[in-house]
């Protein structure tokens, strides 16, 4: 039998001013199960709490109802009070008679009547409360960072700085990501490599950081604090421990015509390669698609010239399984393919290039050693047309509906640098809007216009036609002059939209992290929890969450690291005990709950059941992982058989509340 104590708070005159607290205490004292009903000036005060504690002990109360302010205010306070007096903290219910009663009503009689009903509702609920215990789960003190671009590097460095171990998994043979391909960075124009490579070296040298380059995450299981990831180390046919990165093999390899992806195919590399001089780890990799030895069994030049004996043609993919407490997605981006934009003649002319290709053309380590030359004939271009929003803000289905955010600034940078280095070139930029929110960004764009004489034209290029003499005829609109322009250009640079890396989708599936329609990871809250995924223990860093530039990426990466450190610093995680649970006798294994769960907390397993006729039946039943469940209750409603219920807000409890209100 329940022994419930009711405590009505005056809250000075806040409640007592409009609610007749004596009458409320009296009325509630008559409710079934209530053994004591008292009122007091301030329940949350030291004296008030002592009153509650004494009552629990002396009257052997099993449940407590406090009629006071909002549970959002003092629920934890009173739960602690109850726990201190020796009963389960979840046997406390609060009736909100301040914010939702005394403060909104003026008439004393009405307010008192409502307070009684609210109190009765809380009593009805508390009689159905069950003691709940917060579960604890251990935390593996190691983090996994998926993606080794600037976002992943910064997150890993910050986590390592706090003393935790970090593994970076990078699918390419070196870390560094897109930033390694960029020449200069806006708005300060410092060289990308000069600021990035020291960080890459820091990563390699940091004892706490372990880099799995040329590797991919195969699968992830577990939950916050206790993830297990299977990592595939792809065969690079070079023993990374032995390779000294001298590069002799990359000079001697006879396969010379392999498109160099680091320079976006604008020049060639060998079948064995190191992407660039500052690669980390500086280890050669054999491209199995082009290596004669691997394809035909003939050649072996690299093995002959390697003094370290690092070449191993028989190397196989290797799998590593490790445990992690937190996982960071930093999968990055790629420019979109321009196949839907035939009007810009990207596939017809070598002199129509993307902005990332332009970066390589102006980079000292690029295919032209930093000379801005037309890819077709190696001549200096004299008229360059930049086209913005190629594939961005496109709802027609050809491109991406969002703004890629970085294009306005890098185009201003390209235009400015071109005018600075080659003052004899005419530079046109066609824009729809110039979006430059950011510190010193608009000043930078204005400098391109005012000091460097870049022609910014409000309008869009409609068509680029390559002419037989090698010129590119650009037909475009100038909306302000209300004219159509025909420009003879030597080079056309397209600011292609950016999209999340293709691998992000499979990573999201593995992590049960949600994505939006554009394949960007969704954050737990768009404003207040921007670096966490809704899945506990999974964090987001960099462009995989949404388009952003380098400063923003680094800021987010550090924020993400702070969240990871906050998680790893805990020895144990206390979980909210108000989670879903399934009655396996009722569960029919339909998977309805699994589909609505936003956290992937529900799994299915085959279980043996003893049947009435003494046979054993195997049935598929749902199982909720209480460490992952956040207690939203979506599954409880989706469940057709009523097997799923939520602790703390059970079907019966809410029904009882409804009944009490409608009595």
């Amino acid at each position, binding site marked *: 039998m329940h022994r419930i104590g009711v405590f009505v708070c005056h809250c000075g005159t806040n409640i007592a001013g409009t609610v007749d607290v004596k009458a409320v205490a009296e009325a509630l004292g008559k409710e079934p199960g209530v053994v004591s009903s008292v009122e007091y000036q301030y329940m949350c005060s030291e004296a008030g709490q002592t009153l509650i504690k004494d009552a629990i002990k002396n009257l052997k109360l099993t449940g407590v109802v406090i009629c006071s302010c909002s549970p959002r205010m003092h629920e934890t306070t009173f739960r602690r009070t109850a726990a201190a007096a020796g009963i389960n903290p979840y046997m406390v219910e609060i009736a909100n008679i301040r914010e939702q009663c005394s403060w909104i009503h003026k008439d004393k009689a009405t307010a008192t009547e409502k307070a009684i009903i609210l109190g009765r509702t809380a009593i009805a609920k508390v009689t159905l409360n069950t003691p709940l215990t917060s579960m604890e789960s251990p935390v593996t003190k190691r983090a996994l960072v998926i993606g080794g671009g600037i976002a992943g590097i910064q997150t890993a460095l910050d986590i390592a700085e706090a003393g935790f171990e970090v593994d970076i998994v990078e699918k390419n043979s070196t870390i560094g990501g897109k930033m390694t391909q960029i020449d200069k960075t806006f708005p300060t124009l410092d060289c990308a490599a000069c600021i990035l490579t020291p960080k890459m070296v820091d990563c390699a040298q940091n004892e706490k950081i372990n880099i799995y380059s040329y590797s991919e995450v195969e699968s992830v299981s577990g939950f916050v604090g206790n993830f297990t990831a299977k990592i595939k180390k792809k065969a690079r046919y070079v023993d990374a421990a032995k390779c000294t990165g001298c590069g002799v093999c990359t000079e001697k390899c006879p396969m010379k015509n392999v498109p160099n992806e680091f320079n976006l195919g604008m020049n060639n590399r060998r079948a064995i390669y190191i992407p660039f001089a500052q690669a980390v780890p500086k280890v050669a990799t054999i491209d199995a698609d082009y290596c004669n030895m691997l394809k035909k069994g003939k050649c072996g030049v690299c093995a002959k010239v390697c003094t370290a004996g690092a070449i191993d043609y028989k190397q196989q993919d290797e799998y590593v399984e490790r445990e992690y407490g937190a996982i960071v997605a930093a999968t990055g981006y790629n420019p979109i393919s321009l196949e839907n934009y035939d*009007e810009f003649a990207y596939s017809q002319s070598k002199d129509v290039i993307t902005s990332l290709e332009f970066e390589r053309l102006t980079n000292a380590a690029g295919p032209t050693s930093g000379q801005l030359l037309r890819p077709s004939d190696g001549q200096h271009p004299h008229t360059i047309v930049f086209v913005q*929003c190629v594939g961005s*803000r*496109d*709802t*027609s*289905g*050809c*491109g991406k509906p969002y703004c890629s955010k970085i294009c306005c600034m890098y185009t201003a940078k390209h235009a400015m640098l071109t005018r600075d280095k080659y003052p004899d070139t005419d530079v046109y930029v*066609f824009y*729809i809007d110039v979006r430059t929110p950011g510190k010193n960004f608009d000043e930078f764009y204005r400098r391109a216009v005012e000091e460097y004489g870049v022609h910014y034209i*409000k*309008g*869009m*290029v*409609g*068509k680029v036609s390559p002419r037989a003499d090698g010129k590119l005829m650009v*037909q*475009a*609109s*100038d*909306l302000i002059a*209300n004219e*159509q322009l025909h420009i003879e250009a030597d080079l056309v640079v397209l600011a292609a939209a950016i999209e999340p890396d293709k691998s992000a989708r499979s990573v999201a599936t593995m992590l049960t992290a949600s994505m939006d329609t554009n394949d960007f990871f969704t954050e737990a809250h768009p404003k207040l929890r921007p670096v966490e995924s809704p899945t506990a223990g999974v964090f987001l860093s960099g462009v995989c969450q949404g388009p952003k530039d380098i400063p923003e990426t680094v800021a987010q990466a550090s924020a993400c690291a702070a969240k990871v450190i906050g998680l790893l610093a805990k020895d144990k995680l206390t979980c909210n005990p108000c989670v879903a649970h399934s009655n396996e006798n009722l569960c029919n294994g339909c998977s309805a709950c699994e589909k609505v769960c936003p956290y992937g907390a529900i799994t299915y397993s085959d279980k043996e059941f003893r049947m009435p006729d003494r046979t054993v039946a195997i049935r598929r039943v749902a199982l909720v992982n209480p460490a992952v469940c956040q207690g939203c209750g979506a599954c409880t409603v989706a469940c057709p058989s009523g097997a799923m219920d939520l602790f703390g807000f059970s079907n019966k409890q809410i029904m009882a509340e409804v009944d009490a209100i409608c009595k």
Partner: protein
Amino acid sequence: MDKREEILRISGVDVRKCMRCGKCSGTCPNYDEMEYHPHQFVYMVETGNIEPLMNSKSIYKCLSCFACADRCPRGVEPAKVVEAVRLAVIRQKGQNHLKASQVPDVLDEDIPQQAFVSAFRKYSK
């Protein structure tokens, strides 16, 4: 019916989707012949400034090549707006520019039949 409403109904175009990039006018192969350009058609219909469009020769200068509709990144389809203005004009009484009886006079053996069909569509009810 309000002219703006009429044109929106005939064309089935949501002019509010236009983000004023000007790609339609950048694409238009007959731009210089037109007094009002494709982007202006969309903008002027949106603001309800229809009269000048209806009185302009531009509606007959549009080649109906649909390049603007094809390349519009927002799916606005300016060519349909031009077509709708044209239709609004020829639906007015006495606005027939070509009658079947006039055809023999203008018949030229070198003109492809498609051009005739197209001309009927453009110039008559």
